[in-house]
């Protein structure tokens, strides 16, 4: 069952207002970014996944999807430190804002991608986004729901990762 929680139902950003091409990047280097790519492939959308995206990757991009969640293995695979990743995320979010690129946050990893190592990355991504899609397990403490409420942006809380297909299809 798809839980649909809209904190601010009439917000711009809901109802097919996001455009392609889409850039998907990580905030924390978890492999959830690959899961996001698999979902986009199922929807046949025009997208690319760049784990370590930087400002130049935004050229021609209409929507940035950011997938937050810390992974020590992922950072190891990328060969960067947590601090470097935090800095990169801040820069790409600022660059997207400066270029007027719309931003969607997709938190897929549930509890495993929350906690001390993940939460500042999640907060950065959430505070920059105009729509959030969150797997329920990752919002049991209402972390994202509260942030969405404060910023008056829509949040779609879903039961399972695969349920993200519905709000993504609606958004694009």
């Amino acid at each position, binding site marked *: 069952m798809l839980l649909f929680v809209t904190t601010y139902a009439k917000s711009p950003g809901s109802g097919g207002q996001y455009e392609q091409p889409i850039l998907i990047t990580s905030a924390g280097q*978890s*492999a*959830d970014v*690959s*899961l996001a*790519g*698999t*979902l986009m492939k199922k929807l046949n959308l025009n997208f690319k996944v760049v784990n370590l995206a930087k400002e130049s990757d935004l050229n021609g991009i209409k929507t940035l999807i950011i997938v937050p969640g810390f*992974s*020590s*293995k*992922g*950072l*190891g*695979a990328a*060969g960067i430190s947590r601090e470097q990743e935090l800095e990169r995320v801040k820069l790409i979010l600022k660059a997207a804002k400066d270029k007027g690129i719309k931003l969607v946050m997709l938190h897929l*990893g*549930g*509890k*495993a*991608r929350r*906690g001390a190592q993940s939460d500042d990355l999640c907060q950065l991504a959430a505070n920059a986004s105009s729509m959030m899609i969150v797997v329920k*397990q990752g919002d049991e403490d209402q972390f994202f729901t509260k942030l969405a409420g404060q910023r008056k942006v829509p949040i779609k809380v879903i039961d*399972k*990762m*695969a349920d993200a297909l519905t709000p993504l299809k609606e958004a694009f």
Partner: protein
Amino acid sequence: MKRHVLVAIFLLLSVVTLTGIASADFLRMYTADIVHPSDAATKKSSLSEYCPSLKGTSADTPVYYFDSKRPGATVLVLGGTHPNEAAGFMAALLLTENITVDSGKFIIIPQACGSGFTCTDPLEGLPDFYTIKTTNGTRKFRFGSRVSNPLDQWPDPLVYMHYPSGQSLSGFETRNLNRSYPGRIDGNFSEQAGYAILELIKKEHVDVAFDLHEAAPEIPIINAIITHERCKDIGASAILELELNSLTYALEISPKNFHGLSHREWGDSSSVQPFLMETSNPIQGRLRGKTNAELVTGGVDKFYAQAVKSAKFRITYDSANGYPLKVRVARHIAGIQAILTAYNETFPDKKIYFSNIPSYDDINTKGIGNFLK
């Protein structure tokens, strides 16, 4: 006869008796576990086929082949890389004793670290054996150690320097098969075992390889599928498929700078698609209480239940039911099935088809013993 001579004889006989009892206890661990391969088995060999210097050693562990003689992918399944992670061995054993291969080929090594099955980790109070009731009676299995027996490889260096990267690890890890890859033919005991497994992957042209593990409930990398960066799309598809069946997994990509592990070195040294899977195993945890064979199979520990309730840190443990072996084995089997489904979708001209393997629900409902001979 003088009194001190009698005392000396008594002490000597006591020492001999106690030594005999202790020796018999140690030697029990050298009796191989019985495996009844399914009727689909086409060959039985051992690791020394790929590294002759292992011949006659405890690392010369059996390898079972199930060749359909029809075109398709070749799949390798390793259980018992860490013998104390019982679900890895048991899932590989369940496959070995049931599988029918309809296209392609399966190669299964139920006890990859043969040496580690001949001892347990010292100072942990671990059981030597655990039992599983089957329809044909009770079967006993060795529990084993995380690493090779020190009688096979000793002493440990202060610092283990991985070959060929030069990465430094704790000296203890020199006996860890999953830090030994790619190994070398003239290396230490564990490096030779690692070399043999990678040689098997190359010579048998293995397309997909699984390394089945477990970890303590408090370890962050749990209920996870870890893979080489080349295979992340197959991993992602499998995780979505598993999620549709209410099985939650995290996808992790192998760090490029952490050497010696199967998901890194197999992928770097060959064209195989490697996948390592982890489940939650209370007997490996630091918070566990009573440590016995029941904890291996039942997976219930009151201290983990208490820790979950405290919510002080993230623990993967089911307070109501624990994490029984049947659930952990069922997760591994479901993971293999989902990954191979995703592989077949990605490589439609080289599909692997196999059958007669129980589903996640079947294993949970009927128990592992129902599927062992």
